[in-house]
């Protein structure tokens, strides 16, 4: 966690401006302060992060008993060792069912106002229970039902370890849908990127980025048009675009908002730790960053309802290579994570 005061951010901006003026590289002419880490991790007033809430959320996140099979945890798909994703083209859910969308990394999800590929959840708290209850994903029932003698909440209530942890995190609120969602969200908000070479460079470390990476950054902001959508600290505009993938079966954001431009549109993913989160795109279409760059270089594959931001780039081979080097400069050394002990009684 990196929580800084507003004055600290102001000082950072001043420092950045001084560094930029001293470095004199052409790509530094513009103000790059929008790439700086926000001073605080966004969090709602009704669920401020505390150590007890984070620890409880971590236990729940890694506990396979949150699934109907008692075999799939949140971390099964959002694996910290795989960039908080799963390394698969598309996710595998309950009963080994192959799902239609890839597992998005949950790195820096705290900074995103809308969750999931189609943005249907307006907060982490509203997203947290979705995969647990989804019959295709974790297939769990929160309460007992016709075909289940007990639900997740009953299973948690019989464990003293969880009863104590919930009481410490949310005194007097009990074990409920709401407190489960809040705890999971609190933990997820701690999963943030660390400083990568790019961050060290914009803070003034001249040697942090190679010449190739700097050329890639210039292309990223200019000829290659990437920054139109992959903008700001988290390298996303938090917007929705149809980028011309060959995937006519998934309506994407259009299922949530019936506006023509959104047919086949998906949320712009973060580029933070991009080297760790292959395969890429909502359907896992590409396994390498080189393939991703080529997709954009040719202006997308399917032109049907494609975003007007996507156009042929005519990049040379060396330019494509520079872009890949730059993208890899956005990957930091992930924070170490310890596996929690889970309550058994």
């Amino acid at each position, binding site marked *: 966690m990196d929580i800084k005061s507003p004055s600290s951010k102001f000082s950072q901006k001043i420092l950045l401006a001084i560094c930029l003026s001293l470095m004199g590289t052409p790509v530094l002419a513009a103000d790059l302060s929008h790439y700086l880490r926000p001073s605080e991790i966004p969090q709602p007033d009704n669920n401020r992060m505390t150590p007890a809430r984070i620890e409880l959320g971590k236990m729940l996140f890694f506990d396979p008993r949150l699934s109907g099979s008692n075999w799939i945890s949140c971390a099964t798909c959002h694996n910290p060792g795989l960039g908080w994703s799963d390394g698969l083209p598309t996710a595998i859910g309950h009963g080994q069912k192959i799902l239609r969308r890839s597992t998005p990394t949950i790195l820096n999800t705290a900074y995103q*106002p809308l969750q999931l590929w189609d943005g249907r959840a307006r907060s982490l708290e509203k997203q947290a229970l979705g995969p647990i209850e989804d019959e295709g994903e974790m297939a769990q029932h929160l309460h007992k039902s016709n075909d289940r003698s007990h639900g997740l909440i009953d299973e948690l209530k019989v464990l003293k370890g969880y009863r104590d942890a919930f009481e410490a995190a949310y005194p007097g609120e009990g074990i409920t849908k709401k407190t489960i969602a809040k705890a999971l969200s609190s933990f997820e908000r701690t999963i943030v990127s660390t400083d990568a070479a790019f961050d060290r460079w914009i803070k003034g470390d001249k040697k942090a980025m190679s010449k190739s990476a700097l050329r890639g950054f210039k292309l990223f902001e200019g000829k290659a048009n990437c920054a139109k*959508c992959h903008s700001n600290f988290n390298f996303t*505009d938090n*917007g*929705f675009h149809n980028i011309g993938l060959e995937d006519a079966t998934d309506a994407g954001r259009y299922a949530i*908002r*019936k*506006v023509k*431009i959104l047919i086949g549109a998906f949320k712009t993913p973060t580029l933070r730790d991009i080297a760790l989160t292959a395969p890429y795109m909502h359907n896992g279409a590409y396994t390498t960053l080189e393939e991703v760059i080529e997709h954009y270089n040719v202006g997308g594959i399917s032109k049907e309802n494609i*975003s007007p931001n996507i156009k042929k780039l005519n990049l040379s081979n060396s330019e494509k290579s520079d872009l890949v080097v730059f993208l890899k400069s956005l990957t930091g050394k992930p924070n170490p994570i310890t596996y929690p002990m889970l309550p058994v009684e």
Partner: protein
Amino acid sequence: MKQKYLFNILFIGLIMTFTTAAFSEEFVIDQSSKSFQLNGKKIEAITIKAGDTIRFKNEDPFFHNIFSLSDLKTFDLGSFPKGQSKTVTFDKAGMAEVECAIHPEMYMEVSVQ
């Protein structure tokens, strides 16, 4: 007598039409820094009168796609780049929610009186 009566009705109707048109206003709402702005300030709500028009002008260096699915007024202005603008006239009283389809953080309520 009947002809004179009809003429008066028609005359009053015309006067009312011209009066309404004369008092209708056009508000220019910029799309800037992924927000709706009026006179350079971010707004999330605006109150106008029935018959007024809002001109949505894109000042960002990327596309916006302004729309509303509200019962009061349903429209989709399509994607348009920096420098271009499109207008919507709100004919009836009520409330409309206006968003950008591409950037859902951009949200504004239009109260029509």
